[in-house]
């Protein structure tokens, strides 16, 4: 046998295989594309609604509402004031509209990731088999180059908001799932035993003991998810998601240095605002761990 040539499949067979799979998938998208689009329509509506709320309200009102939300979560004047300042600067440099679109996108993606991710994490924490099954899928979601799964998503949905949402959620959901699982598994066994000894049902244990004690860890996961969905805005802009990613993409293609840096910095500003806010909120959840009063 020739030891210097790998014994590979014949070119003809390989081509036939690719064509068969591609053909089958094309048939699938033709048959089911409309149905799938209808299923995801509510998400698109939600995103459009939030976007319109942010864009069609007076900018000052939006600023006040955002600042109030940030203060409510973080209870920190420093974070709230810093955020207002950052948003004012971003607006002054002409990026208000794109920033609002990106914020809307990240909010909706995070919402989807939380709503879907926490139940999956809970199931993983209950059973080692589920955890063994889901973990490799999460690994794949985080390492598979996003362009690869963009191909089928775009084939089904075309360009636009929905494929963008799907791509971002696939990339950003693993931390919520992983850290929900971890947080629940880390709950001290003696506390769980106490819950059991007092006759808790499985649901009561989850609601009264496991979830509250896992909450700070889950918050860390949500924080990670937000950061990762922000990191995806540039990629998402390639399939037609509007926001801060588009000017960055444009700047790359046409080598506009300043434009790239400015929009990049705006993404960083949103990231810092969201990170500090969620972290401060997570810390507040752990108030009971502080000694003394």
């Amino acid at each position, binding site marked *: 046998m020739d030891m210097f040539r790998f014994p590979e499949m014949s070119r003809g067979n390989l081509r036939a295989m690719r064509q068969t799979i591609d053909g089958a998938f094309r048939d699938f998208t033709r048959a089911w594309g409309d149905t799938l689009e209808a299923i995801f329509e509510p998400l698109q509506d939600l995103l459009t609604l939030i976007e319109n709320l942010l864009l069609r309200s007076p900018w000052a009102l939006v600023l006040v509402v955002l600042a109030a939300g940030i203060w409510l979560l973080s209870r920190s004047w420093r974070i709230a004031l810093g955020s207002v300042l950052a948003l004012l600067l971003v607006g002054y440099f002409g990026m208000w509209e794109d920033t609002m679109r990106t914020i809307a996108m990240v909010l909706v993606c995070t919402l989807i990731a939380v709503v879907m991710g926490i139940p999956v994490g809970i199931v993983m924490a209950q059973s080692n088999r589920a955890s063994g099954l889901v973990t490799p899928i999460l690994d794949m979601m985080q390492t598979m180059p996003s362009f690869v799964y963009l191909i089928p998503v775009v084939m089904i949905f075309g360009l636009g908001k929905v494929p963008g949402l799907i791509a971002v959620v696939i990339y950003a959901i693993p931390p919520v799932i992983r850290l929900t699982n971890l947080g629940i598994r880390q709950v*001290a066994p*003696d*506390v769980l*035993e*106490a819950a*059991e*000894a*007092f*006759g*808790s*049902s499985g649901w*009561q244990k989850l609601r*009264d*003991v496991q979830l*509250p*004690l896992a909450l700070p860890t889950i918050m860390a996961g949500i924080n990670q998810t937000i950061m990762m969905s922000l990191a995806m805005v540039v990629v998402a802009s390639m399939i037609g998601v509007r926001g801060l990613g588009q000017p960055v993409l444009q700047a790359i293609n046409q080598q506009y240095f300043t434009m790239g840096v400015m929009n990049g910095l705006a993404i960083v500003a949103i990231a810092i605002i969201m990170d500090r806010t969620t972290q401060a909120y997570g810390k507040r959840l752990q108030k*009971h*761990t*502080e*000694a*003394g*009063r």
Partner: protein
Amino acid sequence: MNKAGTHDIEIRDLYKIFGPDAHRHIDAVKGGLTKAELNDRHNHVLGLQDINLTIPHGRITVIMGLSGSGKSTLIRHINGLIRPTAGQVLYDGLDVVTMTPAQLRGFRRQKTAMVFQKFALLPHRTVLRNVAYGLDIRGIAAAEERARHWIGRVGLEGYEDYYPRQLSGGMQQRVGLARALANDAEILLMDEAFSALDPLIRMDMQSILLELQQELRKTIVFITHDLDEALRLGDKIAVLRDGAMEQVGNGQDIVLRPANAYIAEFVREVNRGRIIEARTIAAPATGERLPEFTVKARSKLDLVARRMTKAGVSHAQVRDGEVLVGIIDLPSILEAMVNPADAASDD
């Protein structure tokens, strides 16, 4: 508002083998396979063997043993946290071992409450919410009011809104005790409940428990590795060693008539004067004239000795109310208070 214990707990022929194939080895163990052999040959751990114990209602039964003796395993069989490999745990005509999960939940909610060595409080709940926890689970409306009552009874008034982490160990265990008492169960399971506390605070908690028990008359199972604690609290004491019951009896039995060398070694260091009662060593009164000085039958020897030396008498009559139990003298008191083993070795 509080339920006394009304039924004995009967533990019958209980065996617990830890390992994946426990049931396959149970017959061999019943046939005499030892703990060491089971471990060497089959890699299974014999947790409990041939336990038979009646836990009388309304009393404190102490299960004593060193770590690894199986005492924590045994107490968890009573509320089904651990299922035995063979045997029965009977209460009020029901066998805890054969209960369905739903029945077991009901049994735990209504009949038992537990106090843990490491307190096992919910760190994210205040003292008040912790004490109300058992009631919350059962969906009882007046949970908060009842919780406040028990917080007061264990002396934690004013701490309702503190978080567990803000309290000292002793105070945390008072919360644990209040949480268990608020559940208003007939059976109170206490797993090394005071072992993690400083000696002084431990004495304090023992006093609180004894004081509450005077009034509540719960069926209490108390686990400890501390003989002094066992003797102070236990109406009945069961000594476990390597998963087997070595001796069952009251404090007097254990100290004065140790069943074997292991128990004798265990009770060697105990202050016998504080355990042994006057009636235990009283000699029958024979025809001769009775001494005038009188002591109570249930007085402990160190108290009797102190009273007699203070009064300057060497003989006394022992009376249980009106009944004459016998006669006691200082030399016999001294002899009983000195550990026989120590006395022999110092000759």
